[in-house]
């Protein structure tokens, strides 16, 4: 059904594209805000991706690849947004969804979040993208490689490096104070 919508949209049917866009905009926003960690930048990136998708849709050869192509447009917009703000702002923290927090909100949990916020901020935008595609969208490495437009080996190494860095920061945050004081990082 979606492939039919994509074909119609590619021929200029704005209603068909409206249906496609509204069905995906929440997911696109979820990806963008996790990569960029900024509400306004995320909205800008999603808007840019959807507008580009509409204007460039006639050039999409295979309608079944629409989602992968749309994700790629979104990542490109995220990379651009990250470049443009590099000098003006640091990564901001996404506040947790209070409805989904477990009952136990203790200092360890807050320390974990702080550690992950810090480590994520230190990653490149490309590394953040693969982490988000992997853990937020449950994409496998081959799918990530297609969306990001890199060989599978590159996607694997980006993900491996990024997760290793996040886990190291998490481990350091959970290490007993004496052990943490004794380690040079």
């Amino acid at each position: 059904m979606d492939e039919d919508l994509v074909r119609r949209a590619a021929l200029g049917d704005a209603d068909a594209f409206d249906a496609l866009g509204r069905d995906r905009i929440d997911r696109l926003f979820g990806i963008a805000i996790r990569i960029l960690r900024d509400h306004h930048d995320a909205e800008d990136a999603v808007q840019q991706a959807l507008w580009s998708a509409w204007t460039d849709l006639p050039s999409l050869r295979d309608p079944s690849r629409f989602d992968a192509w749309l994700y790629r447009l979104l990542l490109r917009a995220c990379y651009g947004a990250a470049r443009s703000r590099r000098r003006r702002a640091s990564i901001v923290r996404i506040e947790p969804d209070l409805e989904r927090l477990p009952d136990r909100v203790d200092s360890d949990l807050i320390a974990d979040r702080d550690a992950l916020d810090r480590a994520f901020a230190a990653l490149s935008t490309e590394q953040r993208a693969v982490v988000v595609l992997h853990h937020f969208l449950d994409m496998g490495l081959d799918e990530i490689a297609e969306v990001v437009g890199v060989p599978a080996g590159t996607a694997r190494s980006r993900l491996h490096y990024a997760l290793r860095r996040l886990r190291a920061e998490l481990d350091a945050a959970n290490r007993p104070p004496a052990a943490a004081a004794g380690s040079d990082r």
Partner: protein
Amino acid sequence: MIEERRPDDPIRLWVRDGPTVASSEFVERTMRPIPRMRQRGSWRVRLARIGGPASALAGAAIAIALVAAGLGALTGGFDAGSTPVPTPDASRPTFQLELLGNQVGSYRDDPAALTATCRQASDGSWRLLYGGGDPYVSIDLLVVPDAAGGPAAAAAEIFAGPAYLRFDPGLVRGGDPAGRSEASVDIQPGPDATTFVVAATTPDRTTGVDGEPIEVDLTVVCPT
């Protein structure tokens, strides 16, 4: 090694936490303008739509247009026009620029840019002047709402990162040779700002001569 995705992985939980729904205001702001935006048909699609013997004619026309563009580049100069001095009290415009083709790139305005003005002249035309950012972007955009009684026309000279482009198919600033470039502009007046959505296809001028076609998407918001 395939990364393990345990449901209790703290990294996974942390990534999945946070907003998952865009605001309805944002959804409308994004989806509503789309029917007014022009789609860019690829050459492949355009030829397929024409079909049959007409494809050959279209191909020949494209080839002639490209040759003409090349000759025009060799013989013609580009009248960039005079550069007005920005006034200190000019409203600060914003823009989003996307290039597709040999010069792929996405660019946005830098709030710290030294030059960023957008003004409407007494004849109704609009002019954006911008210079700044990293990578450096320079845009000189002229929009004429009803050029020669016809549709709105746009002409621009753009430096964006490594790319250099210019187009003026509407002959509002000296003009391009016939067929060298295409450009359309959608003017969206608003209570606080006027938005210009420019879609153009123009040869890459980065090397100093006309090269492969570059697709330009430029959205400018000029506060009023």
